[in-house]
């Protein structure tokens, strides 16, 4: 088991009073709590901070922690002989627990501290995992395999970290950020309590062509200047196959052309829309003939896209 210096994690002295410990915890929790922090390591950091606080705020757990002695953070160590008997009746296998599991197992712990045989009826823990899928998988539905390592008690009340593997069917209609509940697939209930749930956060991989907003899709539609001016029929890819889109004459850059129900399928019925956003693209290399035609057009045309500049200045 690796040692963690809970005093150092909270940034307090070893003889700090409960008020100083609480103050240090709150300050760090405000900064790193995963529900408020965008820090990529915030969740891991908060877990350490919360574990340290749960142990140091409880006089019995703090005494038990202090009895472990001082070690270098990350250093392998074993609790002194009789430590388990002195501070609780739990039998530990020290190989597959971390320090937080050890203290969660002591009396007075939080939800996960309840153990089989303790006469406590408690629901199992909920687990939350992010499932990364492609846009095509979201449209068709897919099955993902999830591998988790979770703390669980065996029938003798011993705490172990156990690998668990699930296959979860994600029905068609997933949108980025949507949540899926897998009932009863979380931690095992204790003393007849119901099993916890497993929650999947759906995260879509970026797509090469489409950008996603809910079930609507956005696609850049490059047009030539003459297609935009004269109108055209262009082929546009959609998740359900290519379609021919009529571009009206006089189409301008940034205009959104809506293809109704060509976005992503929704969970029950219906589909989102696909919006093709027009970009006017000019050739970077011109042939002599093209250059001559552009020149002829510039001489023949009376179109002035900046006419409003002058009008606005005169006001």
């Amino acid at each position, binding site marked *: 088991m690796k040692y963690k210096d809970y005093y150092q994690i909270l940034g307090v002295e070893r003889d700090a009073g409960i008020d100083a410990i609480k103050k240090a915890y*709150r300050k760090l*929790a*405000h900064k790193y*709590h995963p*529900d*408020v922090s965008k820090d990529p390591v915030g969740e891991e950091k*908060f877990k350490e901070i*919360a574990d340290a606080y749960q142990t140091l705020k409880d006089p019995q757990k703090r005494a038990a922690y202090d009895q472990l002695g001082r070690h270098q953070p990350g250093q392998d160590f074993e609790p002194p002989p009789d430590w388990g008997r002195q501070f609780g009746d739990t039998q530990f296998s020290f190989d597959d627990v971390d320090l937080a599991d050890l203290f969660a197992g002591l009396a007075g712990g939080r939800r996960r501290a309840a153990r089989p045989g303790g006469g406590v009826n408690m629901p199992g823990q*909920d687990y939350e995992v992010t499932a990364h899928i492609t846009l095509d998988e979201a449209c068709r539905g897919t099955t993902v*395999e999830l591998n988790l390592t979770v703390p669980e008690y065996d029938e003798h009340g011993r705490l172990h970290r156990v*690998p*668990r*593997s*699930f*296959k*979860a*069917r*994600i*029905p068609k*209609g997933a949108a*980025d*950020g*949507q*949540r*899926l*509940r*897998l*009932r009863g*697939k979380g931690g095992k209930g204790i003393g007849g309590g119901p099993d916890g*749930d*497993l*929650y*999947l956060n759906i995260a879509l991989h970026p797509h090469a062509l489409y*950008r*996603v*907003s*809910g079930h*609507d*899709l*956005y696609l*850049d539609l*490059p047009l030539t200047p003459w297609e935009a001016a004269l109108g055209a029929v262009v082929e546009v890819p959609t998740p359900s196959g290519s379609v021919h889109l009529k571009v009206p004459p006089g189409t301008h850059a940034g205009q*959104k052309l809506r293809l109704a129900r060509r976005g992503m399928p*929704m*969970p*029950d019925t219906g589909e989102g829309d696909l*919006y093709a*956003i027009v*970009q*006017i*693209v*000019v050739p970077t290399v011109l042939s002599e003939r093209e250059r001559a035609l552009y020149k002829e057009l510039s001489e023949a045309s009376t179109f002035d896209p900046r006419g409003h500049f002058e009008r606005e200045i005169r006001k």
Partner: protein
Amino acid sequence: MKPEQADAMWLDAHCEISIGELVQLSGLSEAELRELVDYGALAPNNPQESEWAFSGDIVFMLQAAGRLRDDLELDAQTLALTLTLLKRIRELETQIDHLRAQLPRRRP
């Protein structure tokens, strides 16, 4: 190890859940949920009826608010304020995603 097969259920605006289910899913008590409704932080879809139903997409914000309450030892009023702000953040994030989706990927 053979993977277990699990069926899934979307928790979104199309899914309606009873107050009993919300108690089970959010980890908050019925009294706390009713207090959040009183504070205006939580709104049932059918406030006139005796059996309230809620939109499924509120579950995750309630879970987050509940975690913050537990971890930061918040009182009821602060819990309500937290939920209101979480909803506002979610709303703004959705708007940002929507606007970002409309930005061209590459400049022509």
